[in-house]
């Protein structure tokens, strides 16, 4: 078995992660539910890759994500950082052993559980007491109303990422940065994050957490990082990654650098613009060297971008946009979970297994060592034999990576595409060969073709768990099919109306990402390196010497060079 350890650093990363694990949890639930669609009972998608089995002190078996999540203190809302699975009854200490004097207790009001969490809790209690499911008829009608309320409640006031999480986490998984509180304004720049890792015992403790999960792995295939690109967490991640590169030298790191919606909003003064641009440049150039493959995601205006043609939501809610990214990460992660089989034998339900290092080798290890990839997504993916006038599968894939050039002809492009749950003729889930043939045919017809494309296919679609936000437009049907005419009623449809969606994602290593890197290089030069640059002082404040800044520039211009050897930008560096 080839395990993947997931690491989530930062607020927005945890928002994404929470959705991600909800999908996994939903899949687990569907696989064990006798009434669910047989397409979800897929023995070839191994959830052990992402999950670990454990045992509580009482000897109860547990199954929890193999995850290290780092966030501010107080960011867990109503959830306890030790999770619920391993709770030891009453945790309140009967007496304080280090003190013999009088003790007075002050208790702050715990965060109130919202409707969704309350119902989860009640359900658990019910499961414990009555295992029999009689008088279900009556309950159902009540449940229905409750579900609606819950979805509404979540749509309106999600504050913490734990508010919509239905997963049980291991006590080692959730790490709160002691002393760094949520809403702390100061943690929004690179400088403050730089020391946060080394301060006190934090770095040591985070490493310890990671080691706990790695030690268990028989054969780790790689780390999957989701990092909050905006704010101090990116600096923290860079320090952490440097550490990992040192300690686990041969284990590849796949890094998603996600920027939240807040980072692009609000009109800014010139000073703030410089601040932001420099931050992005520094953050990117520091993260890239320590990972094997970096995938920047986070569009400034996701809701109006082409990637969300069939989606309907507001940009400013992290709860909403993170769902889109999470869905894409989930799909990109599917090939890692497939049971590896020989290349010739195709199983009925999956095809195209690949491990993390395989993916990285393919995308970043070719002749042109480009380690920056673009993530494209099609959500929901159109049916394979679409009617006339509808978009084809390839055409519907739209980037989630910002600053990507369109229609670039790149002969050396390499792609890895994952399609799952695609609908074929007659609204059935398409069989593997059908999908493969269609995709190949589409590539034949396409104007620009990549040098190489790896295709992974699974039959099971993306299940939509109850706490998923109502972000689907009114052209999306119950199984994610695209309808000809809009459904009457509300303009956005959520988990009650849409139960699953077909997905297609594509990671592509192409020179289309060039503008992204060039932007950052340009900004770094303009604001940080040139003589009299307005941001030079700022960089010094963040603790970077001139040499370090020059090194960063060098790193970026090398990346530009690999993609475009004739670049203007790189030739003037000396």
């Amino acid at each position, binding site marked *: 078995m080839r395990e993947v350890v997931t690491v989530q650093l930062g607020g927005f990363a945890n928002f994404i992660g929470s959705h991600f694990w909800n999908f996994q949890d939903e899949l687990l639930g569907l696989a064990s539910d006798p009434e669910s669609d047989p397409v979800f009972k897929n023995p070839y998608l191994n959830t052990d890759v992402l999950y670990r089995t*454990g045992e509580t002190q009482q000897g109860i078996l547990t199954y929890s994500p193999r995850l290290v999540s780092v966030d501010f203190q107080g960011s867990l809302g109503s959830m306890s950082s030790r999770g619920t699975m391993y709770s030891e009854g009453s945790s309140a200490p009967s007496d304080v052993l*280090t*003190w013999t004097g009088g003790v007075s207790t002050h208790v702050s009001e715990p965060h109130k559980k919202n409707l969704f969490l309350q119902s989860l809790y009640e359900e658990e209690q019910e499961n414990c007491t009555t295992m029999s499911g009689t008088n279900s008829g009556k309950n159902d009608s009540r449940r229905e109303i409750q579900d609606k309320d819950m979805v509404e409640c979540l749509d309106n006031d999600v504050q913490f990422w734990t508010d919509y999480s239905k997963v049980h986490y291991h006590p080692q998984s959730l790490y709160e940065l002691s002393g760094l509180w949520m809403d702390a304004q100061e943690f929004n720049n690179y400088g403050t994050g730089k020391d946060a890792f080394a301060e006190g015992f934090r770095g040591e403790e985070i490493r310890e957490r990671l080691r706990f999960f790695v030690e268990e792995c028989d054969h780790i295939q790689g780390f999957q990082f989701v990092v909050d690109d905006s704010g101090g967490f990116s600096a923290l991640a860079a320090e952490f990654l440097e550490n990992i590169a040192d300690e686990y030298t041969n284990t590849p790191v796949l890094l998603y650098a996600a920027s939240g919606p807040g980072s692009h909003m609000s009109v800014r003064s010139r000073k703030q613009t410089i601040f932001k641009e420099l931050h992005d440049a520094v953050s990117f150039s520091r993260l890239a060297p320590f990972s094997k493959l970096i995938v920047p995601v986070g569009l400034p205006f996701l809701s109006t971008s082409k990637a969300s043609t069939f989606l309907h939501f507001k940009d400013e809610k992290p709860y909403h946009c993170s769902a889109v990214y999470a869905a894409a990460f989930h799909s990109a992660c599917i090939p890692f979970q497939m049971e590896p089989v020989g290349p010739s034998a195709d199983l009925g339900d999956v095809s195209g297994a690949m491990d993390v290092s*395989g993916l990285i080798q393919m995308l970043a290890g070719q002749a042109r060592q480009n380690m920056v990839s673009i993530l494209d997504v099609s959500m929901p993916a159109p049916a394979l034999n679409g009617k006339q006038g509808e978009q084809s599968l390839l055409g519907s894939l739209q980037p989630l990576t910002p600053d990507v050039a369109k229609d670039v002809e790149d002969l050396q492009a390499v792609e890895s595409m994952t399609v799952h749950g695609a609908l074929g003729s007659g609204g059935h889930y398409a069989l593997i060969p059908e999908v493969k043939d269609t995709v190949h045919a589409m590539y034949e017809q396409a104007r620009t073709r990549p040098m190489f494309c790896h295709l992974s296919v699974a039959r099971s679609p993306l299940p939509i768990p109850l706490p998923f936000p109502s972000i689907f437009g009114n052209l999306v049907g119950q199984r994610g099919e695209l309808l000809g005419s809009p459904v009457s009623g509300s303009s956005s449809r959520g988990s009650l109306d849409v139960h699953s969606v077909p997905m297609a994602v594509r990671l592509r290593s192409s020179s289309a990402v060039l503008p992204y890197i060039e932007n950052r290089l340009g900004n770094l030069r303009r604001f940080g390196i040139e003589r009299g640059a307005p941001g030079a002082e700022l960089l010094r404040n963040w603790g970077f010497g001139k040499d370090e800044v020059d090194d960063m520039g060098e790193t970026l211009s090398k990346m530009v060079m690999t993609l475009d050897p004739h670049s203007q930008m790189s030739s003037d560096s000396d």
Partner: protein
Amino acid sequence: MSLRVLNPNAEVLNKSAALHMNINAAKGLQDQIQNPTAIMIARTAIAQDDISGDGTTSTVIFIGELMKQSERYIDEGMHPRVLVDGFEIAKRATLQFLEKFKTPVVMGNEPDKEILKMVARTTLRTKLYEALADQLTDIVVNGVLCIWKPEEALDLFMVEIMHMRQKFDVDTRLVEGLVLDHGSRHPDMKRRAENCHILTCNVSLEYDKRLYNEINAGFFYSNAEQREAMVAAERQQVDERVRKIIELKNKVCSGNDNNFVVINQKGIDPPSLDLLARAGIIALRRAKRRNMERLVLACGGEALNSVDDLTPDSLGWAGLVYEHIIGEEKYTFVENVKNPHSCTILIKGPNDHTIAQIKDAVRDGLRAVKNTLEDEAVVLGAGAFEVAARQYLVNEVKKTVQGRAQLGVEAFADALLVVPKTLAENSGLDTQDVIIALKSEHDRGNIVGLNQHSGDPIDPQMEGIFDNYSVKRQIINSGPVIASQLLSVDEVIRAGRNMRKPN
């Protein structure tokens, strides 16, 4: 003023207002740390902690008291500059006095355990209740002595502090050896073994496809058999390494009932574990890097980076290796080692808070013992030093100083008394009575400290109350520096007002 131009609403305090702000901030420090002056003082306390590991509270209250004493004189119209000069003189004099006053301790090859215990007890008792403090005292002293080698710098990292969460047990003990927070990952390996050879290594025993072929295997092979053959060949390299280890085990363990333990920093995959288990070897994977260094110190032998240089000489030795399992948490104890130059303090507690408190106290205790070993001196505690230093400053130093700087010396001398005052206050005694009693004893030439229970003067030497020399020196050094800086302030700019809103 340039700042006014930038931010017309910035509040610029003039000199005297700024000074008063500093003083008030320093006095009110215990309430809240949020204003810049307080932060400056807090930083000094952190520096104190970094350097000597103790005396943070003393630093803070000492600076606060210096400011408070200064206020009296400044209100009477004295210039802060003069006070600062006085502080400087007093500081130097106090440091000289400290040199005379300290009690030298000869360490040599066999340090005086009693003195070390007394110092450790003094620090620990200020942080924990008596019974627990006394128990920890022995642990801390033995722990440091375990890693102490004369003529070499002490590295306290060689004393590992581990904790275990257990529901009822409150127990802290010193393990002369190591405790690792993981166990073997094979069901057939022994849970307990005596007389063990320990192999410490950093060798990958994991079949790693990535290293052997560059691109996903699927693209290369025309048929499954060919692929299988390739995989088998690659696997052999790993098996070869495992075989070498087993060979060594057979060499050292044949004919006796010794055991063999492999502790590896890198991973060991299930097939390798299987081979090792069949050969009767206990294997642990992914050991912490720090533990690798400590294993060698504790068990002897050397850490190997390759199996090519395996010799019996490179093996360490431990009398007992056993596993302890709580739920899914496993601990491996490596005990009865040959030459323990590294040890582990194992803290058991029912909840995180208790563990954290004990941990902090243990760290401070370790630092106190380390300081004593390095200083080769201790200072009488319970406020004795402060009172004596005050007498010295007032009776001798003050006379040698010309002019108004005398007042600075006096302020400094009075500020020193804050230590016994705080001690008295914390035990609910009347501070005036205590100070007078102490002063008069000192006038009679007896060096006494404060008995917290009765409020009477006691002889700290008899009671075994000793403080670290370096801690005291650091306090005397850094306190006046910060106080002087705060006193010679020119102006303070209070930011944080809304800049956009016009008044």
